[in-house]
């Protein structure tokens, strides 16, 4: 029996983007249904009665809700291709830890940055950058958060990367001087063309892709050594061993196909701010 896969989603949602990317990573054919969040469909209310939120993945009639639940489900069901989560229990726990961190410490200030002003916005900016710096230290000079493979945490961050330009414009600040390596990774997503269209980048040899050397990373971010880590980092991913591999986590075709352009997102944010008198 052919799988019936429907995704209830909203184009601008960073959470929806995660589900889209995961489905495309696995090559799953799915029907995308756009929800009007001001007039939610009966199907959405039926499939997610508790939260009434997108994304909802409906697989052969059964709903899976919450974006990271959806991504994990996709990884477990379509397990034959492009593994998203590591198989080692400790590494999986580490990946989930960073998701929780992103969905609280990044999400909460991010949500305030584009929709508030004044002191609330200033505090949100500060908290947001602090959280990004912790993530940047975790990323280090690895190709992906998950080491050599584009994985769970990378998928989670993609949605926020798409909103970076909007945050910067709404709150009049620049992320790059604060987090250059994270920003370099985000820029690659949207402005570089993938070298081999449609092919997972893990199949490209490291030499084909430029990467900053760890020496460059340290010169880009003087605080790199000091950072937030204790002298013996205890909760971190394994260091990448492949030399020359790049921060290409968001350069993939699956991402480019799943994520709207920054200008479209800013236009939406601008419209909503005006509507609500922010």
């Amino acid at each position, binding site marked *: 029996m052919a799988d019936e896969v429907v995704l209830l989603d909203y184009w601008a949602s960073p959470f929806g983007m995660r589900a889209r990317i995961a489905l495309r990573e696995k090559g799953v054919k799915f029907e995308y249904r756009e929800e009007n969040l001001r007039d939610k469909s009966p199907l959405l209310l039926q499939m997610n*009665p508790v939260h009434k939120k997108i994304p909802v993945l409906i697989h052969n009639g059964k709903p899976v809700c919450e974006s990271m*639940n959806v991504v*994990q*489900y996709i990884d477990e069901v379509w397990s034959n291709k492009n593994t998203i989560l590591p198989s080692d229990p400790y590494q999986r*726990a580490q990946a989930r830890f960073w998701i929780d961190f992103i969905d609280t410490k990044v999400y909460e200030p991010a949500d305030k940055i584009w929709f508030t002003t004044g002191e609330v916005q200033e505090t949100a900016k500060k908290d947001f950058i602090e959280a990004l710096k912790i993530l940047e230290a975790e990323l280090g000079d690895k190709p992906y958060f998950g080491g050599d493979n584009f994985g769970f945490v990378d998928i989670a961050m993609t949605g926020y990367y798409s909103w970076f330009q909007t945050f910067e414009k709404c709150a009049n600040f620049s992320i790059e001087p604060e987090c250059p390596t994270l920003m370099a990774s985000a820029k690659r997503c949207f402005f570089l063309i993938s070298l081999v269209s449609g092919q997972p980048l893990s199949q490209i040899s490291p030499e084909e892709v430029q990467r900053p050397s760890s020496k460059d990373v340290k010169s880009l971010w003087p605080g790199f050594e000091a950072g937030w880590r204790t002298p013996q980092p*205890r*909760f971190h991913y394994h260091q990448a061993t492949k030399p020359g591999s790049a921060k290409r986590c968001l350069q993939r075709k699956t991402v480019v196909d799943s994520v709207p352009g920054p200008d479209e997102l800013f236009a939406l944010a601008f419209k909503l701010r005006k509507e609500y008198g922010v």
Partner: protein
Amino acid sequence: MAEKEGKIKLLGCWASPFSRRVEMALKLKGIPYEYLEEALPNKSPLLLELNPIHKKVPVLVHNDKILPESHLILEYIDQTWSNNPILPQDPYEKAMARFWAKFIDEQILTVGFRSLVKAEKGREVAIEEAREKFAFLEKEVTGKDFFGGKTIGFVDMVAGSIIPFCLARLWEGMIIDVIPEDEFPELNRWIKNLKDIDCVRECIPHREKQIEHMMKVSERYKLA
């Protein structure tokens, strides 16, 4: 499997439901562990070193691996020790278990404790709002011995560490009944079933001590 070998240490707090549920899982699986009590609200240098980002219990240490966050710890334990499984094998059932666990730790804890204690719109309104959320759990456990089916699982440990002990004792101290038996027969039946399980019973804090503790915590929360 080599990964199962080695000492387990658990940094926890007697009154923390997040810490207690980890103990339930360790006891269910028969895993010996060394327990270190954290004298909250003061945070020890050890806690700050092991969990620098969140500074919270529980923290599990297994050989050189450090795991904070109770949900992560429970899944790690389940994947490392496969006896008496906590999570279902089926991906859909697993997704549902994760969904309900998150709902309980976010929504149920909010309406059962935070909103109730602050009661910004009055206590009756807060109780009504809490009951609307509990109704989802009532439906979910209907016709089952446990949320996990015939045996306890992930959701039972998450809900079981919070509702029957932590929240129920707070409500006792506040002299309210948020989930009366006539309105929530299934949840009350589940609570009775739960108390028959050894690994749960061994993790129940002392009743009077916990009521006193919950009243102190709620006072602190009201003033915060």
